[in-house]
């Protein structure tokens, strides 16, 4: 089984997000980078499927040269191959991104065979456009479902579970297909020491991303007004217990 996961390098900010002076990007001087939690789960899901059905997992990204870090992380937890479409560093719009990814996927499939299943995260952690997966699927002519929190492959089909407020929807897609998964579908593993060492030596197939025009232009970023948080003291000592119980009930935790 050939599995592909597409991820995006994004900053991992704290509670307050600073912008660069020109307001074109997040000031990432003191930040680390990661992929969205949805994508972490997508990588984990692909590795689990490989463990069940055999085959290989390829992880692909479009981004700056530094995005290699995110690909190597995926390799450190079990991905087999990594492909990087190098950009000039600016954030491409979804249309351009999807076009470049689709072109690269088509190339890879022409060389080594079709990917049975392509997984993406439900949306990116930074721009959150919800578009790239759908656009890639459309370009490749594959079915896609989003918001998925459960996956199984059987007899040439993938069944995908989506939780709604009051029910569960189950989709059955013929392979090859695409699925956009949501955080919570699994609990991603961390790399092991040997995994990290393997990832360090792994080869990343790197090529310039083919530039395509996109329709979306970003003017500038704005930081929303800081939300004032208030602290309510529910009580002290054992006397606080009823209030805590009430709160837990209100939050649906009990």
């Amino acid at each position, binding site marked *: 089984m050939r599995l592909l996961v597409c991820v995006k390098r994004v900053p*991992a*900010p*704290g*509670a*307050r997000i*600073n912008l660069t002076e020109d307001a074109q990007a997040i000031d990432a*001087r*003191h*930040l*680390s*980078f990661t992929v969205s939690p949805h994508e972490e789960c997508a990588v984990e899901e692909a590795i689990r499927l490989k463990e069940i059905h055999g085959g290989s997992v390829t992880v692909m990204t479009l981004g700056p040269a530094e995005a290699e*870090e995110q690909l190597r992380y995926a390799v450190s937890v079990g991905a087999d191959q990594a492909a990087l479409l190098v950009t000039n560093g600016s954030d491409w719009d979804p249309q351009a991104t999807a076009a470049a990814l689709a072109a690269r996927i088509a190339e890879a499939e022409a060389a080594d065979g079709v990917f049975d299943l392509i997984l993406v995260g439900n949306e990116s952690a930074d721009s959150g456009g919800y578009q790239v997966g759908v656009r890639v699927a459309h370009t490749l002519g594959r079915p896609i479902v989003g918001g998925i929190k459960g996956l199984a492959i059987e007899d040439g089909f993938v069944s995908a579970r989506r939780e709604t407020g009051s029910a569960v929807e189950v989709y059955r897609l013929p392979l090859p297909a695409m699925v956009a998964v949501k955080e919570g579908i699994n609990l991603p*593993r*961390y*790399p*092991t*020491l*040997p995994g*990290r*060492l393997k990832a*360090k030596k792994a080869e990343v197939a790197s090529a310039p991303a083919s530039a395509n025009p996109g329709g979306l232009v970003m003017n500038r970023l704005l930081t929303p007004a800081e939300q004032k948080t208030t602290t309510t003291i529910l009580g002290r000592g054992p006397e606080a217990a009823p209030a805590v119980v009430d709160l837990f009930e209100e939050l649906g935790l009990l």
Partner: protein
Amino acid sequence: MSDLPANARVVVIGAGIVGNSVVGHLADLGWREIVQIDKGPLPNPGGSTGHASNFIFPVDHNKEMAMLTLDSQRQYEDMGVNVTCGGIEVARTPERMEELRRRMSSAKNWDMEAHLVSPAEIKELVPFINEQILLGGAYYPTVSAVDSLRAGTIFRERAQGLGALQTFANTEILGIETHRGRVKAVVTDRGRIEAEFIVIACGVWSPRIARMAGATIPLTPAVHQMIDVGPIPILQESGKELAFPIVRDMDTYMYERQTAGSMEVGSYAHRPIFHSPDEIPSLAEARLSPTELPFTADDFDDQLEDALELMPEILSGAEIKYAVNGLLSLTPDAMPLIGETVEVRNLWSAAAIWIKEGPGTGRAVAEWMTHGYPDLDPHASDIARFYPYARTERHVRARCAEHFNKTYGIVHPREQWASERNKRMSPFHARTQALGAVYFEAGGWERPHWYESNAPLVGEYAVEDRPHEWDRRWWSPIQNAEHLAMRERVGMVDLSPFVIFDFTGPGAANYLQRMTVNNVDVAVGRSVYTPLLTESGGFKADLTIMRLDDEHFRVITGAFDGPRDRHWFRTHLPEDASVHFEDLTSAFVTIGVWGPKARDLVQSITDHDLSNEAFPYGSTQPVDFGSINARLFRISYVGDLGWEIYVPSEQGMPMWDRLWEAGQAFGVVPVGAGVYGTTGRIEKGYRLMGAELESEYNPVEAGLARPRVKDAEFIGKDAYLKARQEEPAATLCTLTVEDHISPRDGIKRYPTGREPITTPSGSRIVDRKGRPSYVTTAGAGPSTGKFLLMSYLPPEHAVEGTDLAVMYMNELYPVKVAVVGSTPFFDPKDERMKA
């Protein structure tokens, strides 16, 4: 939360382990109206305490650090937050095994349990270790881990319980107001507090806060990488936070410490990574905490392989669950920064302190603020120890970059820095360089330690070399040859690093009387060698004072203590401006000319009468050499006839040339600090601040008490008078090494200093004040044919002829007490100096 008070006796900024222990100890010592402020929340405000590994390996070669650590560990124990798990330092190389043997000496010195263990014994203690790659280890059963956050809370609660403390979290310091060089108030985002004292205990942010007051705290935030690996079944099954000893893999600069079901792997092996205090993200901006920065995995990869090699069984399957670049504080010499800042009165620093020495250092700061000096000598931690050049960011970073990877390194006691050299140079540096000077650093100065041009003297005087590389490192037999040539002919010594203070004005005599033990009210042209004491009667400094006029005194002190002495003098100046202080260190340079032919040499270039009658020992006179205006001071730290020659800096080069040219007729040799600081000094039993002299010892014990005590009051007088009434608990002695042959290797070995002096069978010697006997200085006495040691000994051992032992590299060598007290071993009547 209540409002900020308008006034406080003291504001302590910072609520990490340091700030908390400072407020706890201040309260214990009777301070009230203490206000503590932190920008972050409690109990973990987000500084280095919050992510610390919290373990304590008490053994340290450095006495001060060992004592601070031991005191801290006891305090943690008393608070119930100390878990003893034991620790092992493992060796992969023969050099490390030798270093571990050296650790045994330090453990013995400071009375800490320590054993050398075989690979098989290590395997028994740590069943998942790969003992195949180890040569052995050192096992320390008292190694522990502590809960530093809980300890901080206990300290605060203690102070709050005494009604002494108000703590304000989530409060940011915006400024520090000063008035006439003294602190006045702190300004916060919640209001302003006027305070008599301010303590900066802000860890990595300390330089930034100090700068608000115009002061410097020379440290840099630096990264220490660590990862948490788990779950690991054998650790989980132990059911304990710490079931196995902590392992320090010394040769890879790493440690492995159990944290319940997982293993924390930390490293000091990666490249030095520094940050600026101004650019550390705030609590809101940081993903984890301000001092837990994003892990830079590339820097750690090599260490992963080392860790896997040491603990393959447990580390290969487990996952890396947490990994950070943790920030901690580094200083140019790896010691803490405590004491009053030199720039602003009553602005105190308690910074660059790690968990293991936190409570002890907090106590020292509180005692210092309360009594004028702490019980434990803070000599090496005193923030006043740095010259201005060493307070620059460039210097701090360069030195920290150099020593970061030595955190677990094998550092020779004489080891010299490679970075930031050639920053302070004598005006005749080109001359000493042309003579092949090998420079050691002294207060930032390049000071010749020996001269390669003297190599032929080694054969001439048949000086024996040292067969072991460690003993020979940072040493040359040329030093001993220079010594013998000086004793036979005459030597020239570059003393440019001397620190010179002038005190003038109508109050100068009275002021200096109050500062010094010995009477400085001497005739113009005379001099005094004198200790300066703390209030409790221990040594604060020792130095020489010349009286140049009725109201004009000149103080000469050493390069290593210059800045500390400067701060001590300045902070004791009277407020009435009756004394004027001037630091003339940069105005003069000094050349020492000593040896039996010194008078002939110097007399050959001046008409000034240099006879013993006209220029007696201990006197000073202005002397012109042609158009060079010098001041001669007849004194000697090497025990020979001669002078210290002081000239204006710009005349240093012509003065050197004049002496050098004239000296050729007398067989002059350039002589380095190896002779000046060690061989010449130890033969004469001269004491050195920071070696023999420290605040835990008094002049009676050091053999420096004069027959009479002056009438004038002086700092430490009461304690000094009391000490004179008592039998000294220990007396400083000179010992000779009787046999150098190593029982293990069969070759001659030479101690380097700080080794335990024991009974012949190897038992520790401790005086009635609980102080151990150890070597304060070790060095050859070439003119005596002996290798000499100095050590304080309790009365039962301080008897000439007594046989004892020195423990060097975990072996005993016989020594004999040669001199009790300050009588020189060489030329006991000082006939040479006074010739």
